[in-house]
């Protein structure tokens, strides 16, 4: 029934989604080029339709295949760049660092060594980035996972960063947008990892008590503890087309059940059909959709003056046109009815 998914009209032509905000240079996603002999900085083969795409053009299209609409994975910084207004993102809590309370050792070595190597490779300190930004002029607390950082596994720093961000949103009366990809728990942090599910749900519970909205955007792939905690108890749950979303991983399910998985199992479209998400939104329409959603869910007290405080959201996305205002009157507006 994906024909019923939300597809608002596109306004105007395509725009460049990457604002080139200094350090937020788009990086190619590793998964898209892994089995391609072509240098990744020039050409990318679409894994869905097989089309060879010029990498810069793909970037220009927010890494959505212009031929088949396949949504390539996006790095966390790229994600922030396409979702938020240029130069508005302010990152929070960049000094938080993981520890190794279990003194975890696996055949490849210690957790500490793995962390150091990952940090060096990615340039990030952890798998969650938090901060505040504007989306079409509306201030939003935003949390974005980084799948390149240990498969966006949820550990203590994730939990702490997220709780701090959500608590600030609660205190300041701001909506929260969480962008969620994850491979699940971070095994190396043992039960500390599992308990971050409790910590994050609790923080969002308090946001909800304050009647502030949480918009959760599920992107490919989103599994395990994140799917089983705050990402699926949001007020509005959005997903990108084709994103794989589930609790148990597909390989585990196949091994345990010895059954063939149904077609489209765990895709965003599958979840929509099964009632688990509110809407699927193409990447190009995410900003405008989020802007409308924010307007519907954040109320400005009548006495406040939006112009006084840059942090107060605007009430309406688009100023109502005169003919819209009078649509109950003379009936001059052309509707969709015959």
């Amino acid at each position, binding site marked *: *029934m994906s*024909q*019923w*998914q*939300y597809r*608002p009209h596109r306004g105007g032509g395509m725009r460049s989604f990457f604002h080139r905000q200094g350090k937020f240079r788009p990086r190619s996603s590793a998964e898209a080029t892994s089995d391609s002999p072509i240098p990744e900085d020039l050409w990318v083969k679409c894994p869905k339709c097989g089309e060879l795409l010029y990498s810069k053009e793909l970037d220009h299209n927010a890494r959505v295949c212009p031929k088949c609409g396949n949504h390539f994975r996006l790095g966390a910084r790229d994600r922030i760049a396409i979702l938020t207004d240029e130069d508005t993102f302010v990152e929070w809590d960049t000094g938080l660092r993981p520890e190794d309370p279990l003194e975890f050792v696996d055949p490849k070595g210690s957790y500490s060594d793995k962390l150091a190597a990952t940090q060096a490779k990615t340039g990030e300190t952890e798998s969650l980035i938090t901060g505040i930004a504007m989306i079409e002029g509306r201030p939003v607390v935003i949390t974005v996972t980084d799948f390149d950082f240990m498969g966006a596994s949820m550990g203590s720093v994730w939990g702490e960063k997220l709780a701090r961000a959500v608590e600030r949103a609660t205190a300041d009366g701001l909506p929260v947008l969480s962008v969620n990809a994850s491979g699940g728990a971070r095994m190396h942090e043992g039960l500390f990892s599992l308990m971050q599910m409790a910590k994050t749900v609790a923080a969002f519970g308090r946001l*909800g008590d304050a*009647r502030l*909205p949480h918009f959760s955007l599920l992107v490919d792939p989103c599994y395990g503890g994140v799917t089983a905690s705050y990402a699926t108890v949001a*007020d*509005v749950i959005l997903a990108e087309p084709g994103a794989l979303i589930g609790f148990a991983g597909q390989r585990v399910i196949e091994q345990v059940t010895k059954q063939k998985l149904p077609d489209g199992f765990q895709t965003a479209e599958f979840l*929509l*059909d*099964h*009632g*688990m*998400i*509110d*809407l699927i939104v193409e990447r190009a329409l995410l900003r405008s*959709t989020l802007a*409308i*959603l924010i*307007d*519907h*869910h954040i*109320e400005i007290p009548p006495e406040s003056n939006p112009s006084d405080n840059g942090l107060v959201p605007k009430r*309406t*996305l688009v100023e*109502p046109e005169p003919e*819209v*205002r009078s*649509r*109950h009157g003379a*009936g001059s507006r052309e*509707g*969709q*009815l*015959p």
Partner: protein
Amino acid sequence: MPASRLANDATAGTHQAPLRAIDRVRIARDPQRPGTLDYLAELFTNFIELHGDRAFGDDQALIGGVATFNERSVLVLGHQGGANTRENLARNFGMPRPEGFRKSRRLMRHAEKFGLPIVTFIDTSGADPGISSEERGQGTAIAESLLEMVGVRVPIVCVVIGEGGSGGALAISLGDRLLMLENAVYAVASPEACAAILWKDASFAAEAADTMRVTAADLQRFGIIDELILEEVAAHEAPRETVAAVGKRIAFHLDELLNIWDASDPASVDALLDARYARFRNIGAWHEVS
């Protein structure tokens, strides 16, 4: 606009001889009559449909979402059938399954959380009577939607725009105002079902429709609806005018409710709920002897 398939269609307006109840039943069911999606397109902006019951499925026979009405964000709920076979299969001919009622309950809670007034459009032949709907608790799902609706702490305006069929209609009609188009009907059972039970012959539907008192005029006389919205021309002949007329009356009643309701003032919310309670508490025809 296709030619009317109703014999006496020119008399559907109020300025002609009154129609029989069964004629209004046919008009109410006319597939060309504007449906929930038409009202959404004409009267609302910034509509974002919210899907799913978060437990089993997404029922396209009972849709809902957030939208802007008169510069205010509201929650909209409504039944929606299909315009053709493919759509009717997807929308189960506008007959909600338990998932639809569970979605409506979820969205009513959503509206309460964010202080969104609720507007509902009633247009269904009834709740789905299938085996799997029974398995998943059709009765329970309707009951839970009713319980949510009588207690939800935001103003609600409901409009019967087509056929109001039994529990499936009731599930989203317990508002602070119940409006009804002149050619809409609202009944405890379809005239055909009633005739099958009492006459043992569904072809006595016309007789059943008469005695069941299913028209807006009857229900206005009984005090069950708050307002009858005239169709100068029947809605399927003048869809845009009808939708506009309904929009005006929704706006009027919503404004009235918003004048007394303030989400941040619990006393005003309690007053709204007391009035809603009294609405339903007082419906009934009985007398008392000592």
